[in-house]
């Protein structure tokens, strides 16, 4: 599932090479943490959060089968 999310996000942004994601397993919820180029964060969120919301809806539907909850978060890259 993570790989497909990466595939989709890569197609939405201007800097596809900077897209990465990792799965963080929680007790009930798995979080797919996406990192992108800071310029692209807005594109992944979308107007009024529509894009990220749609991604979460789809990912959740995919997880229903395994009786799990999965969500998608965008993580700001470290700025050191």
């Amino acid at each position, binding site marked *: 599932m993570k790989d497909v*999310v990466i595939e*989709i996000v890569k*197609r*939405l942004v201007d800097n596809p090479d900077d897209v990465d994601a990792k799965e963080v397993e929680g007790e009930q919820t798995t979080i797919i943490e996406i990192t992108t180029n800071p310029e692209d964060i807005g594109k992944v969120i979308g107007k009024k959060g*529509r894009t990220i919301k749609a991604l979460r*809806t789809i990912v959740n*539907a*995919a997880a229903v*089968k395994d009786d799990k909850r999965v969500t998608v978060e965008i993580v700001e890259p470290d700025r050191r």
Partner: protein
Amino acid sequence: MKFVYRGKNVRRAINKGLKKLGITESDAEIEIVQEKPLILFGLLGGGTKVKIKPKGGFFPASAQKDKSSGKVEEYTRMIVGMIDKKAKVRVEKIKGSRISVNIDSSSKEIIIGKRGSTLDAVEYIVNLLVKRDPSTRVDVSVDCGGYKKNMSGKIKNSVRQASARAKKEDKPVKLEPMDSHTRKMVHEQIKSIEGVESESVGRGSSRRVVIKRKA
């Protein structure tokens, strides 16, 4: 082949032309023919004229459609594949720049979601991907096992009943909350029913159509 388009300013003339031709700016050679202010809102001429020539010649709309259908199927399959890897995705209808795809799967209920919410999310993301891809210029409508088709039939029925009630009892009748496309469809339908009018009330996801008797 060259095409001339007129507009209020350069930007508008170019956008109008590109839209008509179904190409992007990077695929076009653009030449400004005339740049003047509009005379009396353009009624007496004036305005800006641009000449647009598609690079590498003009390829027929049908060729573009074939390419778009393939892409649309590919994107839809990729997204729905997360939910059901065995789901079958097929382009059902092409009408102008509107492509309808249908998904067939053993887990239809999950793909559709509560009140079609998952299906809407799939459709939204497919359209985003299609818009980002310069080789496709289409609007995609995604259905699953005829769910949307059935829903629009059911909605039309309930609109007819609600209109009859609004007229008979002379009081406003509220419909279920609907998304903007559906509301537009309902408003259109109500225009064709005599003696009633409609408006939308509420905000966000609870915005709904209210049918009233015409005063």
